[in-house]
């Protein structure tokens, strides 16, 4: 296994609050592989907790959001590359991905590699288009519809049964028992994430999740499935255990093949209480926050992603250990306030 000596990798999504992003899990997975390069944390907010974990990051930089062409973002990455090195970027947030995909070729020209889907692949798995995967590829997806105006909520009955889910186009989902509840959630989600707001049929059952990596040609580089054992108030997995259900892994393989997905992927699945069939609730275009569990079970997906970004060949990983548990713990990180000062005022912090 190559050590990637001297390689500098940057990760985003170091938020570690009650709705954690995957960055910490990605960085920990790289460290677990005895990765000998440097890891840089890219923050949108100075208090993203992953930046304060001792021994995780070599460098930390505040970055602007890659919107409106991403020029400021691009220039910031050039600065980071010049000062701390930057060979590979592994982004972890849904909302930053599309602008980053559009910048990927420009980044590659200056030596910053990524391993991301195309804009078309990215959009095919969007919450507003997920149901097309059922009609076009026969994948089991609950009925869904994208709404562009609040008035459409009153026309849902007939097409959908209540309760149903009201989902933001990037994040958040709420259960609604009637039109009035759906309308409240619609307005909240529209204000936070914009339009459309997505309505999805509710399937009663147990939640499972798959962390995976697609090779971009329809093949699955790796996939690890887990059952959510405990959820936070925000519905995020707070404990889980890896499971060995070939039907679940096969569903993930079919999804990756249908999308010809390139890069990290999270498949959120529900196993129907009646009949035991799996239904795809969401396809997220990044690793899940619990991805560190995958390396614990035998598939280091972030490290495989790094190697693919570097142009190395990675053999498909087809097995992992079931019965490997993760339980998330919240802990207080203590450090001098000068560290926060360096991040928030100077916009950067370096471990040594």
């Amino acid at each position, binding site marked *: 296994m190559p050590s990637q000596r001297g390689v500098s990798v940057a990760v985003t999504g170091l938020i570690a609050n009650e709705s954690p992003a995957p960055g910490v899990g990605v960085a920990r997975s790289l460290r677990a592989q005895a990765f000998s390069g440097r890891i840089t944390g890219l923050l949108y907010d100075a208090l993203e907790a992953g930046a304060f974990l001792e021994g995780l990051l070599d460098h930390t930089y505040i970055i602007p959001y890659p919107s409106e062409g991403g020029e400021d973002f691009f220039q910031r990455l050039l600065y980071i590359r010049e000062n701390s090195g930057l060979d590979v970027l592994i982004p972890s947030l849904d909302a930053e991905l599309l602008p980053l995909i559009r910048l990927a070729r420009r980044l590659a020209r200056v030596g910053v590699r990524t391993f991301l889907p195309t804009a078309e692949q990215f959009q095919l798995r969007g919450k507003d288009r997920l149901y097309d995967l059922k009609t076009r590829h026969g994948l089991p997806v609950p009925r869904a519809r994208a709404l562009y105006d609040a008035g459409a909520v009153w026309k849902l009955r007939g097409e959908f049964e209540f309760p149903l889910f009201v989902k933001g186009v990037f994040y958040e989902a709420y259960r609604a028992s009637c039109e009035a509840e759906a309308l409240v959630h619609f307005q909240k989600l529209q204000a936070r994430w914009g339009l459309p707001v997505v309505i999805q049929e509710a399937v009663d059952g*147990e939640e*499972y999740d798959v962390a995976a990596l697609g090779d971009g040609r329809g093949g699955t580089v790796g996939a690890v499935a*887990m*059952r959510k*054992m405990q959820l936070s108030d925000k519905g995020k997995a707070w404990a*889980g*255990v*890896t*499971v*060995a*259900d*070939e039907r679940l*892994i096969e569903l993930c393989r079919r999804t990756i093949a249908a999308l010809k997905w390139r890069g990290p992927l999270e498949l959120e699945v529900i196993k129907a209480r009646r009949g035991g069939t799996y239904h795809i609730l969401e396809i997220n275009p990044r690793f899940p926050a619990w991805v560190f569990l995958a390396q614990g079970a035998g598939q280091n997906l972030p490290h495989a992603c790094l190697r693919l970004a570097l142009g190395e060949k990675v053999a498909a990983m*087809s*097995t992992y250990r*079931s*019965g490997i548990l993760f339980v998330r713990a919240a802990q207080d990180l203590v450090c001098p306030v000068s560290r926060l000062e360096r991040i928030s005022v100077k916009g950067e912090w370096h471990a040594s």
Partner: protein
Amino acid sequence: MTGRNARELNVSENGFFFDPQTGHTFSLNATGALVFRLARQGNGPGEIAALLAEEYDVTPEDAAKDAADFLMALKDFGLLR
């Protein structure tokens, strides 16, 4: 990666076991663990009830009812075919 097979479920000394296909965990008391092991060894409800009546201070009728109820619960959880 394998499919469901009750014989893959190994009950620990404490009566704890994990279903690798569904991700469910279970805790059985000593009697439950004994019945589960006997069922997995291929014993039917009648044989299990007879063994329970022999092992514990219960009538054959109570043992038969308890064994049947417990075996039904195991089937409901998909742990026995």
